[in-house]
């Protein structure tokens, strides 16, 4: 279709561009926008998750173009970097809703400890019941906390940090999909409890979902995510020594 004189030119441009951050950064945003557009079109159904759609589109694209993950990440790292400042930004809704947060201190601490231990023990336990290898099982222990923290913990206990990153993403997507129907089924109408539960179980992606639904839920999810980052960092090395 393309005349043979033009083909090398296009080839040259492609090689030039894909070696630079611009292409994969742009494509990452585009994939997410498509995911979000589908989410809106579906009437904001939790099953149509923008993260899952974006990841799927990008994986297919990388495979089709034979692009290495490292090349992709050189561009996409600018988005990845913002995870840090975004975690810090949680202090803002925390400050704005502090009066309500302080009144719920006891339920929060109790739910944090119970949720954090459940997340770690059940993930590793179920994996081992299914005969998953020890190395992989260990990589699941910190799956419920936000990505940079989870990867650090996995490194510490001898798992595979990049596998943890993937599992963290899947955990977030599952939490965001399940939380609304699950909480409605359980007839929980307390926004604080709903938000806190999804924040403990599925970190930032769950928190993003909570912010979409209700600001109080989002605030409590954000606090749960920050608190669980600390709790899991302390609990995983202790519990792993006991169970795996």
């Amino acid at each position, binding site marked *: 279709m393309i005349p043979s004189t033009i083909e090398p030119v296009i080839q040259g441009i492609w090689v030039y561009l894909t070696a630079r951050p611009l292409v994969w950064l742009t494509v*990452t945003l585009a994939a*997410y926008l498509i995911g979000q557009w589908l989410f809106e079109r579906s009437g904001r159904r939790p099953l149509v998750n923008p*993260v899952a759609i*974006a*990841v799927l589109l990008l994986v297919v694209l*990388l495979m089709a173009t034979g692009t290495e*993950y490292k090349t992709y990440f050189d561009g*996409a790292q600018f988005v990845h970097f913002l*995870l840090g400042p*975004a975690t*810090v*930004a949680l*202090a803002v809704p925390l400050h*704005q809703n502090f009066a*309500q947060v302080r*009144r*719920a201190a*006891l*339920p*929060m601490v*109790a*739910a944090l400890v*119970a949720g954090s231990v*459940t997340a770690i023990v059940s*993930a590793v336990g*179920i994996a081992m019941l299914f005969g*998953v*290898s020890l190395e*992989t099982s260990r990589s*699941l222990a910190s*799956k*419920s906390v*936000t*990505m940079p*923290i989870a990867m*650090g913990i996995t490194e510490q206990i001898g798992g595979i940090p*990049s596998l943890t*990153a*993937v599992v*963290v993403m*899947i955990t*977030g997507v599952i*939490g965001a999909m*399940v939380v609304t129907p*699950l909480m409605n089924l359980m007839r929980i*109408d*307390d*926004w604080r*409890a709903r938000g*806190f*539960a*999804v924040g*403990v179980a599925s970190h930032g992606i769950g928190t*993003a979902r909570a*912010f979409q639904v209700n600001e*109080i839920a989002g605030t409590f999810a954000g606090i749960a995510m*920050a608190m669980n*980052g*600390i709790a899991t960092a*302390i609990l995983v090395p202790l519990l792993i020594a006991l169970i795996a």
Partner: protein
Amino acid sequence: MIAALMGLLACQLAGELIARLLSLPIPGPVLGTILLFLALLARGKVPETMRDVARTLLANLSLLFVPAGVGIIQHLDRLRGEWLGILAAVFGSTVLTMIVAVLVFRGVSRLTGADRISPDRGRA
């Protein structure tokens, strides 16, 4: 806006520094969150630009997980062998964690009377 971004980055940087210097088990960004919270508490109110930047970042939080999520492409072989166990563990554990956390939160809230002061209710 630049000042707000600078504020967020400075808190994160200070958090990372403190975590490393004192070799705390608490991750840098989480310490950064605590530092910013204390700064806001001292100031008494959130500057408007900071509120806008924070709202923008948090409203798009899930986008930030996409680049690392695409890393799934590096683990397709491992997933092919162990996908059932991994999926069962992740799904089962996530649902179980939410159920345990929400029940404990509600139970303790009722017991300690934290319920009566907070009438904020709803469903979605």
